[in-house]
């Protein structure tokens, strides 16, 4: 079978998505783990030096920078079509899959250092912490 990769955005007009990437895992407190929607993760700050960023999560601060991807990433969306096609012989449940390009990612803001603890107390409603970073991935 074949799955055509569709793209309705046309060359040069692909909406650009962003990636904020950090080492390790952000772990929400158990009380909010299953309802993260709308929750603030942290604050991204472009520092005074161009291309350098900080990301403050709770009382952790990460240092990072904006890096272009060596090869761009395309965001594809998988859709099932054909559910609406009970075609003649109805040959099995051959629900076809369609892949559509919905975006492109050309750069990411990468934090690859361990977090630095901020002295001040965290705002009480931020309920997240950073778990120990995993071994380097990049």
């Amino acid at each position, binding site marked *: *079978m*074949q*799955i*055509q*990769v*569709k*793209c309705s955005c046309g*060359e*040069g007009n692909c*909406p*650009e*998505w*962003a*990636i*904020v*990437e*950090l*080492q*390790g*895992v*952000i772990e929400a407190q158990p009380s909010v783990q299953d309802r*993260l*929607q*709308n*929750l*603030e*993760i*942290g*604050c*991204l*700050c*472009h*520092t*005074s*030096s*161009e291309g350098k*960023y900080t*990301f403050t999560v709770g009382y952790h601060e990460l240092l990072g920078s*904006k890096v272009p991807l060596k*090869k*761009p*990433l*395309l*965001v*594809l*969306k*998988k*859709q099932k079509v054909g559910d609406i096609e009970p075609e003649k012989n109805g040959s099995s449940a051959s629900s076809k899959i369609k*892949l559509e390009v*919905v*975006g*492109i990612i050309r*750069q*990411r*803001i990468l934090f690859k250092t361990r977090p630095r603890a901020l002295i001040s107390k965290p705002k009480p*409603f931020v309920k997240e912490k950073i778990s120990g970073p*995993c*071994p380097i*991935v*990049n």
Partner: protein
Amino acid sequence: MDEQPSCRGGAELVLNLESNSSIPINYDPNFGPHDDLILLEVDEKLLSDILQQRVTFRGQPDEEAVLCTPSKTYAVKFVGTSNTVFLIPPTNSPILNANADNEKETVAGSVLKVAPGNIELVEVAPKLDKLNSLLRKKPYRPEGKLELDEMEVEEMGKDNLGLFPWEDLVDRIQASDEELRAGLRALSAVEIDGSWGIVDEDYMNNLLTMLLNLSVSEGWSLSALKEDEVVGLMEAYGYPSKLVLHSLDMYGSKVSEDVNAGHLWTLDEKRVCVHFARGILRGGKRKMESFMEEWMRKIPPGMRASFDMLEGEVLVERLGVGTWVYAFSVSSMSCTPAERFSVLFRERQKWEWKDLEPYIKDLRVPGLSSEGLLLKYTRRTQPTKDSEPVFSAR
């Protein structure tokens, strides 16, 4: 507590954040696993193919999918990451199913998904072995008439005729269109009304023999066959023009497109000679002398056969005082190096380079030279400095 601002997306805000300013990063109201969103890493060349919608994933449910551009095939590999990769769509991306109430100005980046990794593409050789076995298993036997009426075709199914519609091949074979066409050409497949098949060998043999007989009786030159004349007369003998043209293409080549004289074809000495050698050896191995005698007898006047023509087609073995020759054709072998070498070493434990070369020179693996192939799949031994190297299985 303040209610979270209703801000969605915001990729461009995140990426274009001015120095000395900051922006909150939130989980989007739709945040979730979103398994339907896939990240695909592409280089710039592939990017333009994809944006111009010239790319498809191909494969059966039990096969590992490949991605095909018009001319190349790529293996698809998922590469996981242990980093946390927050995916932030652009503001008002339709993917967010934004409602009317969030038309307020976005002031945050909202994370739709944490990406577990991305798909990487690695260029690979097309998987044409399946094409080979599919077409060879069921050769096309023209039963005198080529144009079956539609009723009949429907009854029998084109598969039963040994003809496979292009769309079926594309569905079944993991290769790009260009590679698939090259594969069909290499198999000498014929196209009839958009379907492809390999013509039955006996049929092709009869057709070629008839053509050669006619050239003797009509005084045609084998290096300047007039297409109109040949096709016309062959049709009178019951051979459809499509297949006559196919045989001209299979055993020869077009030499001129002269408007007045019509197309001229020349038959290729080697291809014609090889055809007859194959025919003789289809019956099993033969003593060299008797093979050569019969082969020479079958060669049409004006052509000369030489044993070199059969490299990659036959092997010679010495048994006692006798020398035997038998068919061992590279064209029926797998194009996967591991399988190819395993067949070769099953046939013979040791190969000299001159014997081995015809059986591996067609192997193409992206990123691997033929020396690399030999290093990977064979062991090379050279008893003395001046002797020929010998290759055996690793």
